[in-house]
Each structure stands twice: as C-alpha cells, then as structure tokens.
C-alpha cells in the first residue's frame, strides 16, 4: 500500500475556491473599465492620479506593517490596491501629487491601519481619504477638468468646470429653473463625457464592472439595488412634485458618484452589514442620505458622506438584524 502518512483534519474537507485575495483582485479588475474610460476622457493625468494613489496606498500599508507593527505584510491580498484605485476614482484628475500622497496616507494609515488593518476598519478607507481631502482642500478637490480639453492631457492648467450636480446646486441657489440650465445630455452623462472625479464619470463602465462582480457572486445585489432603488424612488417622488426644483431620477443616477458608490464603495464587505436584510437597510439608508445631502445639503454631492454615515451605523444594524436561529421561538 502506497499510503504512508495520512492527513487528518476535522470536516469539512473541501473548500470553496473564493479567497480574500481573489475577491480583492476581482474588485480591482471590475474597476478597470471605468479607469479606461476616464483615461479616454481626461487623458494621461487620470492614469497618473490612479497610479500614484495605488502606489502610495500600497507603500504606506507596507511600511506600516513592516516597520511599525512588525507583522508580515498583506499587500499581496490586493486590498490596499483596491483602496488606492477607489481613492483615485474619487479625486479630480488635476489634483497635485502631494495631495494624492496625503490622501493615500489618511486612507491607509488613519482609515485602515489605525483600526487594526483589513477587516477591522469601521469606515471605508478610500472615503476617509477622500473626505479628508475634500474638507481640507475644497478648492483643489472641486476643480474638475473638462473632458477632452487638450490641457487635461498633461494635467496642468486644465480648463475646469463644475460637475453636473454642482451646476444644478449653484443654479438653484441663484433661483434658476432646472429647464433653464445647460446640462450635458443624458447620453454623454451615461458614457462619462462630463466633468467629474475620475471614476464617477462613466456610469456605463461602472455598471459593467458592477454586473461582473454580481455575476461572479463577489458582491450581492442587495446593497446596490436598495441604494439605487431608494435614490430613484426619492428623486422620482420629488421630481413629480416639482420638476423645476428637483432633478430627474436619471440625472441623479448618472451624474454623480451614485454608481461608483452603490457598486463599489457601499458594497465594501468590511464596512457593510453581514446579513441580507441588514444590507438592504444599509442600502436604503445610503440612498436616502445621498438624496437628502444632494438636494438639501451644502454639498452638491452626498454619496461619500452618506456611505460614511451608514458605515458608522453598521455595528448597530448587525446587532439588530440577525437571522432568526432555526427552531428558536422568540419570547
């Protein structure tokens, strides 16, 4: 008999092929179409921002784990790279390099490692970095390069314009009617031909990536559907009430970071609830807050804040929403 030394372990003896690493790199891959589109519209500066952000996120994670925590590094699992790319997607293509470095540092060092690394951070690290930059450097963070502007290709002194939501917000503050504003066509918004941060411009590319993740069963449909569904529902209700004051649902969907947020940021496993019902509540919360901040808040865009606020509520949701244990009757 050839069997010499058998291996013994308790059951189960087989394992699903999904690993953390695989999940992270799939998320990364699903973001690539959107990156390609933004390079097409904003030129090499988009690639510059993305690469810098990824590079510094990975480097900061490596340095902190290697020299401060003195543990084995986990940069290969791809989570830092995903954070880097997501952070880049939330930045304008004209942002100076040093600000990208600061953003990456805040995202990784404060947003992630200070809580104990992967799996322990309560807030989405990319959003922490983004919001830090937005509050600290509001001017740089809101100068959006116009697509196809020749200067944008070199990243210096690009022509800038407001985002669609920014334009609307300003217009309404000045008392203009929506029909009187010169908004880009829905088609160009869908494709991504409008000013905005790198990743949020092309709803189409993000949608493709999101569907791929859903199809690979890496994310579940609950958060994106609840998030976008709520956003559409609220926008539709208000729009029907007063079409000149409140934007149409499609513009809400296509113009800002809703797609990016719903498919890639809110679905971040670490910072979203564990149970299906919890995820639906989380998604609805994100949708409501996004709409409220966009329409009634001071900022034109509310996805980041909405997700961060809901992130804070995740422990509570997880505590409240649990599956009912089999055969256990509630007293």
């Amino acid at each position: 008999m050839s069997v010499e030394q058998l291996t013994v372990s308790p059951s189960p003896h087989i394992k699903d092929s999904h690993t953390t690493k695989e999940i992270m790199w799939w998320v990364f891959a699903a973001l690539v179409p959107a990156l390609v589109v933004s390079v097409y519209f904003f030129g090499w500066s988009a690639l510059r921002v993305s690469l810098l952000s990824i590079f510094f996120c990975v480097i900061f994670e490596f340095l902190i784990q290697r020299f401060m925590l003195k543990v084995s590094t986990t940069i290969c699992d791809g989570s830092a790279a995903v954070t880097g790319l997501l952070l880049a997607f939330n930045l304008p293509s004209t942002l100076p390099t040093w600000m990208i470095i600061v953003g990456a540092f805040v995202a990784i060092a404060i947003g992630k490692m200070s809580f104990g690394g992967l799996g322990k951070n309560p807030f989405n690290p990319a959003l922490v970095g983004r919001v830090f930059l937005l509050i600290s450097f509001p001017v740089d963070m809101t100068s959006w390069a116009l697509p196809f502007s020749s200067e944008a290709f070199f990243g210096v002194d690009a022509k800038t314009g407001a985002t669609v939501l920014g334009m609307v917000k300003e217009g309404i503050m000045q008392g203009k009617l929506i029909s009187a504003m010169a908004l880009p066509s829905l088609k160009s918004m869908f494709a991504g031909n409008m000013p905005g941060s790198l990743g949020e411009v092309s709803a189409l590319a993000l949608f493709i990536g999101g569907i791929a993740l859903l199809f690979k069963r890496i994310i579940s449909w609950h958060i994106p559907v609840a998030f976008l569904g709520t956003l559409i529902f609220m926008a539709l209700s208000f729009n029907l009430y007063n079409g000149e004051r409140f934007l149409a649902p499609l513009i809400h969907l296509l113009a800002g970071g809703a797609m990016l947020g719903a498919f890639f940021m809110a679905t971040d496993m670490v910072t979203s609830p564990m149970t299906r019902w919890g995820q639906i509540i989380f998604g609805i919360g994100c949708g409501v807050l996004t709409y409220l901040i966009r329409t009634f808040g001071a900022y034109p865009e509310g996805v980041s804040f909405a997700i961060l606020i809901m992130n804070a509520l995740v422990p509570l949701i997880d505590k409240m929403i649990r599956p009912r244990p089999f055969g256990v009757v509630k007293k």
Partner: protein
Amino acid sequence: MKLKTFRIGGIHPAENKLSRAASIEDAGIPTKVMIPIHQNLGAPSKVLVKKGDQVKVGQVIAEPGGFVSAYVHSSVSGTVSGIEDVTDVSGYRRPCVVIDVEGDEWLEEIDRTPELKRECKLEAKEIVEKIRQAGIVGMGGAAFPAHVKLSIPEGKKAEMLILNGVECEPYLTADHRLMLEHAEEILIATQVLMKAIGVDKAQIGIENNKPDAIEKFKTLLSNYAGIEVVPLKIQYPQGGEKQLIQSLMDKEVPFGGLPIDIGAVVMNVGSVFAVYEAIFKNKPVFERIVTVTGKSVAKPCNLKVRLGTPISYLIEKAGGAPEDTGKVISGGPMMGKALTLIDIPVVKATSGVLLMRQEECERHEESACIRCGRCVTACSLGSVPYLWSREIDQGEWEKAEADHVMLCCECGACQYACPANIPLLDKIRVAKNKINQIKRARSQK
C-alpha cells in the same frame, strides 16, 4: 417549476458524483473482519461471544446495552479470534469482535432468494420489535437506532414519514444506486413503516441531481397509496434532518427538540431498505452499500460490503490507493471523518470511502475576517458563525451559548464558504465541547 428547499442558507459544492453510473457490486468476503461493538449513538452494546466461538452469518454477537442501543450481528461465518481493541473511525481504539472467516454459512432463517415479497401481517409493535432485533440504525451517518425513532413517545403523534434520499454530500452515490436498483423494496418497506408509526402519508425527498431515481419512483408510485416523491433543489445540506423536514413540511424542529415534536419521522433510504430485508427476509444488518471514490481512484464504485471489512480491502477493490493519496475519509467530504489508518472496519454508518489527493487536502493560511457575510449566508440554521468565531477567540463561552452555538449541526457550510480560510467549524466544535463541559458543571451544582 420551483423546487422545494429549506428557508435560508445553503451552498452548492461541486457534486463530483463519479460513481453515479456504477451499479452495486458485491465486494466479496475478506479473510478477517473486525466488527466494532459500539456502532450506534447511545449506550454501547454488550458482547455475547468470546474467543474461540463459532459464529454464522447473521448471528447476534452483541446485544443492546439500553433502550437507545442496538444489536450487532456477525457479517461472516467463522471463528472469533478475540475481542480486541482496534482503531475505528473515531481515531481511537475501541473494542471489536475479530472473526477469522471460514466459508460463508448463513443462519437458516435468512431468506437469500431475490424474490420480492409484499405480505406483512405483523402488528405495529411487532414491526418495531423486528427492526430492533435486526439492529437497524440510521444508515445515513448518524447511526441513531431506528427502533427508537419508530417508537412514538406517549402524547406525541406522527403525521408523516419522510424518506431521506437526498444524498447531498458530494461524491457519494450509495443511496442513489440503492434507490435505482431497489426502488420496489424501498416502497414496500415504506408501507410497512407507515403502518408501524400509524401515518397515511410518506414523502421521499430526493435531490434533483438524481432524475433517474425520481423517475423510477414515479413510475412505481401508482401502486403505493399515500407515498409521494418530491424532487428537491440541489443545495447542501438538503439531507440534514432539520433541513429536509423544513423543505418538505415547511415546519421547523424546535431548538433542543426532536422531529417527532412536529410530527415527522425521518428515515434514510438505506435504513428503509434494511427494514425491508429485516421484515421480509429475516436478514439483520450486516451488509451495506459503500461508495468508494476519489478523483484519482482508478475505478470509483458502489460496493455491497459486509460490516467489519477493513477499508483497505475496499480500496483494493476500487483499483488500489493512488500514489497521490493524502487523506482517506469515511463518509463524504463535507461531514466525513478523516481516517488515521486504512485498516479501519466498515460500520453500519459508513456511507462512503473517499480518497483525496495530497493537493486537495491542503488547508490555506488563515487571514483576517473581511466581514463578507458568506458564513451567515451559507448557514441554513440562521446562525452567525463570524460572531461565534470572535466570541470563541476571546473565550466568551457563555456569550456564544446565548447566541445559540449549540444549534450548529456541524454541516461545515460556513467553513466551506469562508474566503479568509478561517476554520470556523473547528472553533465551533471546540466551543460546543467547552459549553457541554460548562453545562455539566452547572448541573452538578
């Protein structure tokens, strides 16, 4: 048509039913068998033979040591060479009756003809007694004595008999082949069992990956009133008792309760076939169907095996152990037990022998939990394995108990699904063990 299934959770591992098409073969008789005395859940049985005794096939060699206990019969004829400690599936040495085989002489009352019999004039009580005499236990893997299940306790009433032909474990095909080749016998025995527990309704639950078995039953059913075959969604752990009852009856077995509390009696098809043999052929349990399989196995097969046969003998029958064998499992890959040796005897609950390749049995390094929630989604009992894992790591046993860790049926779906390779079930097992100790200490106070 939407197939029936349980309410939440479940996974779908690769089925790998390699021996699906291999019809049942007789494995033959080895030269020596080792029959473990304690093969069932509950009290151990008491040995009746001693060294030097002559035994025949079907002769009782151990009697029950209590109500929840079972008879053990000799599977061969020959001389008892001793009561020895032999390593069994548990990984520990336990007493076995070792018999040197001489010829193949059966007890005279056993009917060895293949002729189908249908007439059963026995009363309900007599049926149960006959089943007890035959030493029938749950052949699906739990080895719970069948007569205990069939003795409906005072004040309870059975509503439905459920036949478990799900076989949701990957690789295993023993029940599948049995259903295909002995469908008629199973149906006849089902009627007998319905009489024994006083119900007029029985359902056979079969996972939808066995369409031939479902078809076979459907063609035969017109002659058997009250029996129904129900195709079920292919989803692990469909064959778990609680899950199967929920799929078929849409009722939940209460936590800490038994299926009979909601009127269900569940029997594995293997056990039902054994009931047929016991009632109509006077044949006690000393044989069973065992699937021998594995990706590198030359000839995956379904064998009819005498109990006590060493597993190494079966492996030889399937073409020998491949060079790359790393792990030998008794049972399926989800809930089976890895063996320490290959000379371990086949027992009543051995449903399969799975030889896994070296590279298949590697475990990957554990990484941090990313809170993906797959364990929660996979659990069919509505539990929170990630939370248990955290509580267990911190030694908060009472908290884990309050979060119903004792509910876990150890199906392994959570650990299967975990992308971070966290040994969730390993931890849960430790916790259950620990909580049992705490409970015992509490009851002593």
